[in-house]
């Protein structure tokens, strides 16, 4: 699995929002890869830049936001310089999207069948009846009972969990190699959350789809993801295989985040709550952005910013503690 070329390869991505009071850099130096059949979990506090990363990859940044640096490679093609028109062909065809709130992701005035066939026919050379048949297949695949009937129903006739399945079917419509799922379970009941993540896992295994799973729930990561990327204040602070990162988190922030999952809290020595709040993007302290909240802060952390270090493809972490451990 690891020797296959990555589906998504983001290199040094930077996103800027020019504004009246100067430019806000929402993302800087974000590098990550996702391989076929792999689920990369992306975690971090609210405002860390998780959604922004997904939107930047899909070319869906709200103007004046734009990619100001770095490269995005998808299936061996660079896509961050494509025109809007070219990007339209990438979205839905090569990148499927799943949004947080299934209640608002679907157009209330069209049946789910109409929305599915629309997506299918935009991307695949299928006729009306073939597209409809495919829509029914997709609904069946994501576990919707009586799909031949349900295809003609309006979104409001589905429950929240069922709607999220429809959204997943829409994301899968053209069999994209990459799916970006932004908090796909946050808006759902706990019992349904597990079903949806299991469904994602299964689809990923069946079709070798790469998934970028954005969440702020370490529990979901632990259960579903293969690798995890931890974000803080618009930067990546740690990335690596889930079991490694959970067993031996390199960054104090990762350790802090893990304090929020009780099941793992038993394995790992009981960790501190993270005090304070993430800095605003226009007021990031010099040195390591996490230094005002870090329990292990050193003098150096307040002046010099640690770079991501580690072996490519394996774990990497941006923290001066790493250097001390290496030494």
């Amino acid at each position, binding site marked *: 699995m690891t020797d296959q070329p990555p589906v998504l390869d983001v290199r040094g991505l930077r996103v800027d929002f020019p504004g009246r009071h100067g430019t806000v850099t929402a993302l800087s130096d974000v590098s990550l890869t996702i391989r076929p059949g792999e689920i990369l979990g992306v975690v971090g506090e609210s405002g860390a830049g998780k959604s922004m990363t997904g939107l930047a990859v*899909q070319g*869906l940044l709200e103007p004046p936001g734009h990619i100001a640096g770095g490269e995005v490679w998808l299936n061996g093609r660079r896509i961050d310089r494509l025109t*809007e*028109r070219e990007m*339209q*062909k*990438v*979205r*839905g*065809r090569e*990148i499927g*999207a799943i*949004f947080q*709130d299934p209640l*608002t*992701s*679907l*157009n*209330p*005035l*069209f049946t789910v069948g109409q929305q599915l066939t*629309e*997506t299918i026919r*935009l*991307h695949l050379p299928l006729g009306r009846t073939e597209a409809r048949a495919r829509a029914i297949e997709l609904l069946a695949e994501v576990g919707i009972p009586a799909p031949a009937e349900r295809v003609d129903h*309006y979104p*409001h*006739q589905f429950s929240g969990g069922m709607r999220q399945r429809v*959204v997943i079917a*829409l*994301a899968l*419509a*053209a069999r994209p190699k990459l799916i970006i799922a932004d908090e796909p379970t946050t808006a759902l009941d706990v019992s349904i959350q597990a079903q949806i993540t299991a469904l994602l896992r299964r689809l990923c295994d069946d079709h070798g789809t790469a998934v970028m799973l954005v969440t702020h729930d370490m529990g979901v990561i632990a259960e579903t993801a293969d690798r995890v990327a931890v974000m803080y204040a618009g930067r990546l602070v740690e990335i690596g295989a889930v079991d490694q990162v959970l067993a031996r988190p390199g960054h104090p922030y990762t350790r802090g985040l893990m304090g929020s999952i009780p099941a793992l809290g038993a394995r790992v020595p009981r960790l501190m709550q993270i005090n304070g709040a993430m800095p605003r993007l226009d007021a990031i302290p010099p040195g390591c952005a996490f230094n005002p909240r870090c329990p292990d802060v050193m003098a150096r952390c307040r002046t010099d910013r640690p770079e991501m270090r580690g072996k490519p493809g394996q774990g990497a972490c941006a923290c001066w503690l790493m250097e001390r451990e290496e030494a």
Partner: protein
Amino acid sequence: MIVFLIKRLLNAAMVMLVVALLAFSIFRFVGDPIQLMVNEQTTQAERNELRENLGLNDPFLVQYARFVTNAVQGDFGMSYRNQQEVMSLIAERFPATIELVLMATIISLVVGVPLGVLTAIHRGRWYSEGLQFLSIIGVSLPSFVIGILLILVFSVILNVAPAFGRGEVISIGWWTTGLLTPSGRAALVLPSVALSFYQITLVMRLVRAEMLEVLRSDFVKFARARGVPAWRVHYRHALRNCLMPVVTMTAMNVGSLIAFALITETVFQWPGMGMLFIQAVTFVDIPVMAAYLCIVSFIFVALNTLVDITYALIDPRLRTARV
């Protein structure tokens, strides 16, 4: 659904009864009808007889009930001025007003909807903000000023469109139409444009506001994330979700347009109900005034009721919620 329907209809009937009461009161108490109907030679005995014959000595409620009963059957009595049935006078003028109002409505939609969409999509660009500014002028300019300006420019200076009248009309049954003759169509242009001005700005502003709201919604972003082209997102997904309030407002405003047409009809000497009303006012022709009041209110109330009912019928969410 049935309960809703009955409630809504009762509501409408109540409003109409109140309007009829108002119209009747004007009819009955503004001036003495007998005084207006007779001449100097009529003796007091004859006057009393006429009063008795017309039922003017009956108790108020009886008279009111009679007025309502007659009105429901379309009988508003005789015009004082030219001894014609009020209803046939109005029926003669009705098509002119309706054609004017419908044309104005069509213009307001054809122009207003795309402008609203464009100013929403290109928010912040100079032309979008410019249109937005112009629409404020459109709302605040009185319609007679617009009418006079149009006449000045297109009839007097450029001489490309007639400034008054309805042109040649063709009768189809009791309906007369100007749409089938070149002069009739030419005559319709300026008045309907003048009348539509205010409506255009209303439609444009409503569509813009609704579009801005809808464009922020998740399903629009999700449609883009599915690779739906921008124009299709705007015109199919977003606009469709704005249309409900636009249809509602347009239908409801047909009533106000009929009332507004009063001014436009006067400016353009358009032979519609509004002109009839203005003439009636000058001659204190009270039955015509009462009838106009009742009929315009009826159209108003009927449209509102119809819109409410269709609203409940066409929204898929409301439709299934009631199964």
